[in-house]
């Protein structure tokens, strides 16, 4: 799949020709400030941030922005061509396409963001514990993670959705979120475990232990903050991937079910009428593309800004 970014992170690290100049005042700035400053210098990252912010606003104010209800049928207005009343036309049930595309933003962003966050909140602690304690804990946790990773991701996601049985509305959306989160948990566990393995050998961790700081405190206050940069980058690019996975599941009929507006489903449903109404499939597809592009640009910019090895 066109799975955006994170898979080639390894190869890209240390190779991108960003040529970020390090100015003299770097030392007086906090790392966060530095990152933000670098992010603002990158045109593509700024475009990404603008797209993502605009989409968030659309999702938030969908009820106000959409001219009509996305699920209101009108049998007298089926397959209307784009007009003032229906800027993007209507579908086979006479539903306003613009309203459906606007409301579709909610499902797409909700699933994209929450599935990645869910995977993060489960995967990161597993990675921390496995990396920090090592030994048997490590091998048990990582075996389970490898088991999930051994699956071709779509095979697993599709079977999970069949088990959950796709439904409409919020419950249906939660099911999709869960299925995508499960296939993404090992990505975080592996990533964090790798970072922890190197960080835990550092002297400041040893001195923490010598001072009698408890393990949970060391993990939360001293180790976790030091593996945040790759987590943030993976999360942003991961949202792009998750949005594509959600759209793909919807396209296969296994996402959030109608009448809830979902871009993948709308695209699939309208492909059947592509001969006579070519514009109908175009708009949901464009919406998916712009959303994924926004997160990919933002993620790429973040990676450049957060990875000090690129200096």
């Amino acid at each position: 799949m066109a799975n955006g970014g994170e898979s080639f992170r390894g190869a890209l690290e240390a190779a991108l020709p960003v040529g970020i100049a390090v100015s003299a005042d770097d030392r007086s700035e906090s790392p966060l400030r530095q990152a933000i400053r670098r992010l603002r210098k990158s045109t593509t990252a700024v475009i990404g941030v603008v797209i993502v912010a605009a989409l968030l606003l659309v999702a938030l104010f969908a009820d106000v922005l959409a001219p009509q209800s996305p699920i209101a049928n009108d049998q007298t207005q089926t397959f209307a061509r784009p007009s003032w009343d229906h800027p993007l036309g209507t579908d086979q049930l006479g539903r306003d396409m613009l309203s459906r595309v606007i409301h579709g933003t909610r499902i797409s962003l909700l699933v994209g963001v929450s599935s990645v966050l869910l995977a993060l909140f489960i995967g990161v602690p597993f990675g921390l514990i496995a990396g920090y304690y090592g030994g048997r804990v490590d091998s048990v946790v990582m075996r389970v993670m490898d088991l999930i990773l051994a699956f071709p991701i779509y095979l697993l996601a599709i079977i999970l959705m069949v088990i959950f049985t796709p439904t409409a509305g919020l419950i249906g959306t939660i099911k999709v979120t869960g299925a995508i989160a499960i296939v993404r948990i090992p990505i975080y566990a592996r990533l964090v475990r790798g970072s922890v393995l190197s960080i835990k050998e550092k002297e400041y961790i040893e001195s923490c232990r010598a001072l009698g700081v408890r393990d949970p405190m060391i993990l939360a206050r001293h180790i976790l903050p030091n593996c945040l940069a790759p987590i943030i980058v993976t999360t942003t690019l991961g949202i792009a991937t998750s949005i594509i996975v959600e759209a793909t599941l919807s396209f296969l009929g296994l996402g959030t079910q109608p009448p809830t507006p979902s871009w993948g489903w709308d695209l699939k449903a309208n492909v059947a009428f592509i001969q006579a109404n070519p514009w109908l499939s175009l708009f949901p597809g464009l919406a998916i593309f712009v959303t994924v592009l926004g997160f990919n640009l933002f993620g790429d910019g973040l990676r450049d800004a957060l990875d000090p090895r690129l200096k």
Partner: protein
Amino acid sequence: MRTYILKRLVQIVPTVLMITFVVFVMMRSVPGDPVVSVLGDAYTEEDAIKAREAYGLDKPIVVQYFIWLGKLVQGDWGASILTGRPVLQDVMIRLPVTLELIVLSMFVALVIAVPAAIIGALRQNTWADYTATTAAMIGVSIPEFFIGVLLLLAFSIGLGGLLPSSGWVYLPGTCPSIVCSASLWGNTMHVLMPAFALGVGRAAILTRLLRASMLEVIRTEYVTTARAKGLGERPVVFKHALKNALIPTVTVMGLQVGFLIGGAIVVETLFAMPGLGTFGIDAIVARDYQQVQGFALITALAFVVINLLVDLTYTFLDPRIRYA
């Protein structure tokens, strides 16, 4: 080398067993009973019990799995619960379609990506580079079914039906029955759009990766040395730089196989192709246990074999890498 390959081939077994076992257990936890759809309107509780016995569905799941496995090692992949057709036969009919799609899409990806990445890296920060990186960014952000829809709009609808929008014409010699059509020309016409739909995304990922590792490699000392000793630009780029830059790229392309399987399902669905992807998704949705097992088995095999091939490619790209 031979011992290494043997060792790896042996390691394939537990992975494939594990994937097929997990799929087996998962499918049986899907709500609903395939026996209900087999019996249809004629459903009675008595018949259902008989049917379950006939298919061996009344036994514990683990026992069922070992029965399946036992038959498998004798070359029997079981028969579909819903159609009664042997699973192996169906898989073999559909495999060439998917193989053709995947091989051609990888070809499309290489033909686009290798020149784009080389030009991007050698002419870094010129308009040619910006064009390549922008196109690649757009490419990684479009799901393949949308590329497919755009192709449909352009070549099936826009250009007056230049390319067929759906269906399949088999390659001569792979036609599974007397009713299907087979011709090289018809096959080419049918496979072009699907192969591009699946290949473009891959091309974008490849371009980004390969450009980045090319940039890294052309700054190394051995490339400078090669140039200093008077070697022409062509051997420097292709023999010294490209070959080394391909190593991380091949790794990631191997990791992409999981996504490629999803891509094949989607593209085959969009273009209504009779391949393994549509076979798998139909089987999963219909809860045809035996067919799903066949699909899981062939997918798992493809997955591990490709990963093995990726590892073996390293020895070709970098002779210093040896497997003992």
